[in-house]
């Protein structure tokens, strides 16, 4: 049923990108849960860190994740105007813009960092976001040592 269900068996030598996803409790973490309850399959490369609001995600969390070896980072929150805390997601979006520029200067491609709006009802969007990012990261390959050190 799912494309992910037919992923080829793991090739032990292959590059396995690692993604850290900061998910807000109310929308995107619930969306990730819904992907589970509806058994949507996505690659197991993501490690989710639950926060109450995407507005909680300090830019240093993202930088730290890259510095410690993440190949991609996602900050996921409620859709614009749907934030459980009124406007935390707007702040996440602003920090996202800043981070994108900053990362690009540090030599980390913009595709490695995404701010996504995933509602509690969007299990499929969560699964698709992970699938897309894994594919993108596999294409990009690992981050250069210099860029990481820069963090």
């Amino acid at each position: 049923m799912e494309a992910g269900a037919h992923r080829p068996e793991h090739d032990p030598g292959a590059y396995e990108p690692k993604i850290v996803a900061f998910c807000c409790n109310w929308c995107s973490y619930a969306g990730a849960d819904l992907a589970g309850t509806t058994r949507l399959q996505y690659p197991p490369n993501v490690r989710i860190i639950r926060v109450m609001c995407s507005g909680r995600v300090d830019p240093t969390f993202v930088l730290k994740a890259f510095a410690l070896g993440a190949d991609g980072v996602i900050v996921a929150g409620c859709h614009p105007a749907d934030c459980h805390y009124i406007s935390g997601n707007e702040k996440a979006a602003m920090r996202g813009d800043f981070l994108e520029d900053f990362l690009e200067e540090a030599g980390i491609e913009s595709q490695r960092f995404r701010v996504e709006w995933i509602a509690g009802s969007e299990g499929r969007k969560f699964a698709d976001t992970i699938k897309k990012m894994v594919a993108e990261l596999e294409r990009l390959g690992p981050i250069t040592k210099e860029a990481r050190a820069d963090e």
Partner: protein
Amino acid sequence: MTAPEPQNKGTPQGEPAKIAGAALVPKVGVFVCHCGSNIAGVVDCGKVREAAEKLEGVVVAKENKYTCSDLGQAEIIKAIKEHGIERVVVASCSPRLHEPTFRKCIQQAGLNPYLLHMVNLREQCSWVHSHEKDKATEKAIDLVLMGVSKATRLEPLEAREVPVEPTSLVIGGGVAGIQAALDLANMGFKVYLVETQPSIGGKMAQLDKTFPTGDCAICILAPKMVELARNPNITLLSYADVEEVKGYIGNYDVKVRKKARYVHEDKCVGCGLCSDACPVKVDNEFDLGFGQRKAIYIPFPQAVPLKYTIDKEHCLHFKTGKCLLCVKACTNEAVDHEMEDEILTLKVGTIIVATGYETYVPMKKGVYKYWEYDNVITGLELERLINASGPTGGHLIRPSDGTTPKRIALVQCVGSRNKKIGNNYCSRVCCMYAIKNSQIIMEHEPSTEIAVYYNDIRAFGKGFEELYHRVREDYGVEFIRGRPAKLSEDPKTKNIKIRAEETLLNKITEREFDLVVLSTGLRPSEGSKRIGKILSLTTSPDGFFQEAHPKLRPVDTAMDGIYLAGCCQGPKDIPDSVAQAKAAASSAAAPMFAKKVTIEPLTAWVNEEVCQGCGLCVELCPYGSPELVPGQKGGTKAHIIEALCHGCGTCAASCPQKAIVTRQFTDDQIYCEIQAALSEHGRKQAPKKRAEAEVSG
């Protein structure tokens, strides 16, 4: 730029089996749940337990078939006592499901309930990587490592206890809202019922008879409406909208706009002299445009409150500045064109959302030609046309020429079970209302020929199947399995030809009818969307409000103190709506009877030593929780007003000094999780990109 270091720097990299940081690592117990085969069928739980055992701080790691069961919880309690466990990690399902369960469990063993961390092995691992068992196990081990790592940094927290205002707000005055309000009022609580329309009653007031018993809808609803209006515990705010809700369980501040109806409710006696005098006639929404009303009107004779309302858009006085015939006609000086909207502020402890549904509107260019052919109508329009108090006095006529239709087709699943338009769900009532309406038509005109085009007949409720059989066998209603592919109108007779594949006969037929009725489904109301935004409620993929748990908490929402009743949660019939309303009333009553609730202490606090008093947090907080105050040792410092803090953590994320700590989600705890997530454990990194590896391989 270098990322600021966390307060606790953590152990050097590359030592996966060690937990970063603290000199004194608290004793951690890890409980890995099999969840039957839900987790264990994919994840090798034995391996996860073994890996957990090796982690620094972990003094005991156990596996359970069902950790949430009595046995599983008993084992946690026993382990806490035997091993002196100080932090508990339960690796099972989503914390959104069982965090309260396990918090209570460890509290029973004498631990502070906030010294628990849940690792999501089910929704976010085994269920989404069912076909990659090895990698799922590897991920599970990582997740447990992250969990243990965070757990070692958890601090005990004291839940806050707050008083509960013993008053409830019910939003929506359909049958669900009415029932919920009555139940709460009868338990002795004060209730505000806010209804956007001039009268309560909702959609049920428009229906003719109800399935499967054939009770007249308004005959069973009207007495409840009157009872509600007369109940001294209920304040009915009709023609009013909820505009703003602030606060939390037990303590909500609600702003309601009472729209000007240009008739003083306290003076209007509902005599109708104004309406008789009014020269303006417009289509009556209540009769879906089949009947007419005046510009000063009540929507239907049994309206509650029985107070007239001026439709500003059509009133001649508002258009031309003249007329005022209604003012002259009124003997009580109730009509007042100068009236203005009124803003009320209410203080309530709980909220019940009963904002109902709307019926699906067929598409402009759709197959069923609803907008093109006069003799294609919807199920709700049929309800008005067979209703004794409807525009035709209950005599069914067809719109094109007013004659009595002899051949009628009912088309099922219009706007339901249709992926193309994004409504995948079954609306649950259309089969039965079509069957019920067939019965009523046959009782009025026994010689009518009725054909029902259906996909599946869903007659699942009490007495439903029996009615279905009666209509088929006693009344001779024909059921045709197949979705109509094409409708065409005879330009002279205005009759409708339906071309359809009759799947049980395996042939394509074309049959002519005098009237076609589309059994349109249910969809979330516009009011629901508005209220959902105000209350930050989540919806399920079908657009209806999402309950806290589909089986166990069907009337609760993710927001404590806010409950759901009726079709705003999903399509349902009248008995189900009433049952859910009663359940919502009982859920809302619980904290109000208890008079107090404990609320999560996940708030922020400011470390005065570090704070420079820049005030950025004051600027960013959406709740006005931080304030600048003189510091204890001088200077200006930020201070969080805890009652206003919702714990989102935006202030902490923005604080340039890192002076703000968000409880349970501290910088330090999150850094530990990041570090654990990226530790070298089980990580296989090839020097080459996959593409290159494939080429060279």
